[in-house]
């Protein structure tokens, strides 16, 4: 996270009881919940496809990565469509958010590197943690998450069936 620019403009959203911040520049749009097509045998992280203005876009669930509970969508659920680099290739993907808060500037001075210990999650998936309103905001490393999780194959049911 850029210390030299002074602040990071970010979209904040809630996943379960944690607040996440995503670089606002990578966000394309925020959608209300749309019908999700389940992709059989796909990893749970990207188990769905959605239609974004005539485009077929994979839908990811960061809650899978951060070992969170995954309750059914409710009236606050939104889909954040963003551009993320997967193995160096820009890709459009959607992520589920339990609630989208706002766009805000996070003072770079308040962003710290993710602690290597004492964190519930794999440190490689977190670029930084920022202190805000007495709580913490997690800045996920989306590019890393998508590159690692996307290539993980679910146990293939095909061989079992064949």
């Amino acid at each position, binding site marked *: 996270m850029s210390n030299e620019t002074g602040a990071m403009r970010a979209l904040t959203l809630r996943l379960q009881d944690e607040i996440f911040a995503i670089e606002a520049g990578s966000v394309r749009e925020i959608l209300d919940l749309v019908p999700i097509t389940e*992709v059989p045998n796909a990893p749970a992280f990207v188990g769905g496809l959605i239609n974004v203005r005539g485009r077929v876009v994979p839908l990811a669930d960061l809650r899978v990565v951060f070992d969170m509970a995954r309750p059914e969508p409710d009236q606050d659920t939104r889909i954040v469509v963003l551009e993320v680099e997967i193995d160096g290739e820009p890709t459009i993907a959607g992520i589920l958010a339990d609630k989208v808060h706002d766009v805000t500037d996070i003072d770079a001075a308040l962003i710290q590197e993710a602690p290597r210990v004492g964190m519930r999650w794999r440190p490689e998936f977190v670029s930084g943690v920022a202190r805000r309103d007495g709580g913490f905001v997690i800045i996920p490393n989306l590019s890393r998450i998508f590159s690692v999780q*996307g290539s993980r194959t679910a146990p293939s049911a095909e061989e079992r069936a064949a």
Partner: protein
Amino acid sequence: MSLPDPTETFRQEARELLDQLESGLLDLERNPSNADLINSTFRALHTIKGSGAMFGFTEVASFVHEFETTFDRVRKGLSPATPDLIAIALDAKDHVHTLIETPQAAGSEGESILQRLRALVSGKATPAVMAEPAPEAVAPTATPPATGKRWRLRFTLPKDALLYGTNPLLLLEEIRAIGPCEITVLTDRIPPLDDLDPETTYLAWQVDLTADDPAAAIDDVFLFLRDGMDLSLVPLTEESTVAEPANVADPLPASADSVADVSPPMAKRRGKAEAQQLTGVAEKSTSSSLRVPAERLDELMDRVGELVIAQARLTQIAAQSSDGNLKTIAEELERLSSGLRDTTMGIRMVPIGTLFSRFRRLVHDLSRDLDKQIEFVTTGEETELDKTMIEKLADPLVHLIRNSVDHGLEPAASRVAAGKPPTGTVRLSAVYAGAEVAISVAADGAGLDAARIRAKAEENGIIAHDAKLTDQELYQLIFAPGFSTAKEITALSGRGVGMDVVKRTIDGLRGTIDLRTKPGEGTTLTLRLPLTLAIIDGMLVRVGDGRYTIPLAAVEECVELPAEAISTSRGRNFLDIRGALVPFVRLRDIFNTPSEPDQYQKVVIVSSGDGRVGLVVDQIIGNNQTVIKQLSKLHTQLKAFSGATILGDGTVALILDTVHLVGMGQAYEDKFKAETTGRAA
């Protein structure tokens, strides 16, 4: 609208002309006295020369000029078109190709090719012709030199020309040396005094020049300035109508005598002919074809895709409505959009013959280099495939043909000993097969040698010494990385591209490779490629809560799953379709569908190549137009799906990959057979 880069346009045209030249030469080899062929070859040469000079490819122009001069003797019947001559002419053609595509890589082989060519054609007739094109040497007896042609040259120097030490006066001096001229300075770009930068060049010049062929000389003058400057050279129009043969601009003069007009005087009037020739080429391409950047076609395809999706929604809404007018319009629009879809896709389709014709040269060279007599037969040239796919197929096919000839065909002596005709045959064919195109390369050679493949694979550590493999499995090893059976690596094969690369390319196109071989009779390799069209007709089915699309062209028939098949679901998964056993797979098993199956299960029989498989679904919903959207990188590892599409209600449906599913069915069938025979034994 941006103007295309003229140099690129020339390159494209030259590529086509060189192809034309090559196929002309190859035809000529079989048919050496055909005047039409000789003339068409000559015309291609001539056009390359003309437009080459026009676009500043002077080296190309002068080389081709020499080439043409020599070839002219053939055209006049003074030298026969012997195989040797054709071989050198082909080398010359390759050299021109190098000069055009990668001029920096071209060495000095040009002169040696010309030497050989000259020596072969005449020896003495054109000894004076050296590197500098000397038009007088072409045909000394023809019409007297047409001197005193007038040209208008206009040029602007780069803005910073003065800064870099260019002296315009010296340039003008040099131009003056080319021929008598009238120089006018164009001052219209000089800014008001306040804005004038004394170090910038604002002047432009117009020179009316009288010279025979000033293009090359002018190029020399501006040699170091060409990058930043504008320069145009046009013949002064009032004269260009006089002595021009009427049919120069005619793109395809059919009769031999009309061509005879064109040539020797043309060589003299080269400069002017260039301009004429160029318009001729331009007219030709506008009348028969139009060059469009591929991205624009992609864009068009995307738009049509969106239209089809919107139309599907309209149809769905109309179906629920009782408004007769709405229904009529929806139907009308459906008809129109499906017509538009077909037309748009047709634009992208290219007959595979364009690719096949390239291989004639390959086989010709192979035949010469390996000293094997080869007959090359192609069929199905009219079969159309998406342009991008055709481009990607070129390298794999080159490799397959090379392998078939190099490793497959035996030397003539062994062929005769085996009771076969001494000339080997390589057949290249393309044919539509359902949702696929099958392209096969068949050579009537010795066939694959399973024992040798086995030995080689063991040696290279691809398989263990005691591995039990069927012959068919052994044959498949030729596609393994690091495998090469050629006893000695020839210059032709073993160039680093192995069969594994071929396999990977074909996999990348979602195609498959079938291999059939019979010892002593030959080997056939068949590539099966999906007609990857952006939009296909699909059959929509439901499995559990999910809806999936099956490419309609792959669907053979739909039947109800017999009750006994349901009860014995753990046993043999085969259906009896009119006496033939067809394996079936339950999509709900493959997809881990949790819900209860419908009471009456349906089976959609799909085929790919010779294989068939039944796909058990809960419901067949109907036909739809399917706009194929590629899956993202996140889902490409899922082999069961070839893409996704958007349905009329806006939801996404996955498209089933029939080739993969048929493969699964076949694997199941093989396993089952192996088990039953194993049990019997």
